[in-house]
């Protein structure tokens, strides 16, 4: 009687064992199932915040390979303004954003020279879905849709962000809040890309 590997349960026949052909063929089936075909949307990075912080960085990215990124953020907020910077472009003047906020029975619109990804109230639950792309001429474009609470109202909004400078690649995404330790423990960020 042979043995099985610990993770994928691949069969290893014993010396002198006979009739193991089917089990070895099953190995190839397991490998075939678990080897991943290219071109699927997969988790590229995943972060669960262990301690309160004011920045979450997703590093070692490559949007030229991964085509685009889809970022999902689940958080319990600790601040009001959350920004999304790429690479090492931390100066707000590198970005421009437009926003639509809906709350109560009204909507408001605005814009600013910064990468504002979403707004919230401290201690509000937040869901953010953001699509991140790099245009063929090198601008980073971000569209975020979010739901949260702000100013005492349940809100939903959209922000669109564009860099005013071009980049060759997007290798780093940073979520930054304005207030000290405003990204609370337990916040989860999942980044999907084409792999």
């Amino acid at each position: 009687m042979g043995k099985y590997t610990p993770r994928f349960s691949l069969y290893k026949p014993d010396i002198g064992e006979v009739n193991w052909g089917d089990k070895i063929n099953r190995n190839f089936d397991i490998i075939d199932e678990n080897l991943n075909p290219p071109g699927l949307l997969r988790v590229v990075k995943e972060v669960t915040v262990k301690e309160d912080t004011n920045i979450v960085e997703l590093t070692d990215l490559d949007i030229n390979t991964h085509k685009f990124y889809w970022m999902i953020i689940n958080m319990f907020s600790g601040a009001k303004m959350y920004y999304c910077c790429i690479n090492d472009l931390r100066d707000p003047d590198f970005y421009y954003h437009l926003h639509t906020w809906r709350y109560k029975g009204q909507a408001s619109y605005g814009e600013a020279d910064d990468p504002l990804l979403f707004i919230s109230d401290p201690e509000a639950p937040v869901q953010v879905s953001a699509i991140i792309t790099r245009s063929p001429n090198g601008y980073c474009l971000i569209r975020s849709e979010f739901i949260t609470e702000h100013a005492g109202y349940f809100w939903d909004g959209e922000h669109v962000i564009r860099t005013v400078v071009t980049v060759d690649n997007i290798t780093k995404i940073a979520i930054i809040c304005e207030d000290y330790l405003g990204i609370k423990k337990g916040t989860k960020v999942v980044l999907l890309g084409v792999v």
Partner: protein
Amino acid sequence: MGTYTPNLGLYKPDVGEVGWGDKVNENWDKIDEKVTALEGLKIVKEIVVDSDTDTVVLDELDINKHRFYILIISMISSGGYVHCYANDNFDNTDYVGRYTWEYNGYSSSGGRTGAVILDADVDAPTQIVCIITLDPAGHYMLRAEVVTTYAGFYTDARYTYRTKSTMDNLTKLVLKGSRSNSFRAGTKIVLLGVV
């Protein structure tokens, strides 16, 4: 004497070779160690309604494992509302939310309860796309983007909710119509999560 594959160094015994067992067993260890099954967005549940019904249940879910859900519904409206309840929480007042409808050059929005994700004309072809998350504190959060027909107009709608209560996990989604047979035969429901 056999040969080795270029990437993983897997041994390939020659025809008629003997004593290759240990080397082939090493292959399985190499594969088990080096093959990583990347997680990606995959179908967790898929339902095609085979006969008219009031309720569709997506059960045996585990959002803690699947991170978030994308719920896509393709249906013909029977009029009235469709709710998307979490687990067995049917208390409409627990779902705090808001809606935005845009149709005929007009936009209306306001507060809403009850996890309603559709309010449409009878016989309206309808597409609903929801992003569903739990925030770190356990609030159910839902954002639904809807294309349908309302009051005779082609309508782009959005519904967003969160629960006041919290939950440890989301294991069930219950789609419930306010009218009998809200889900007609042929309704298609696909739920994706990270697997």
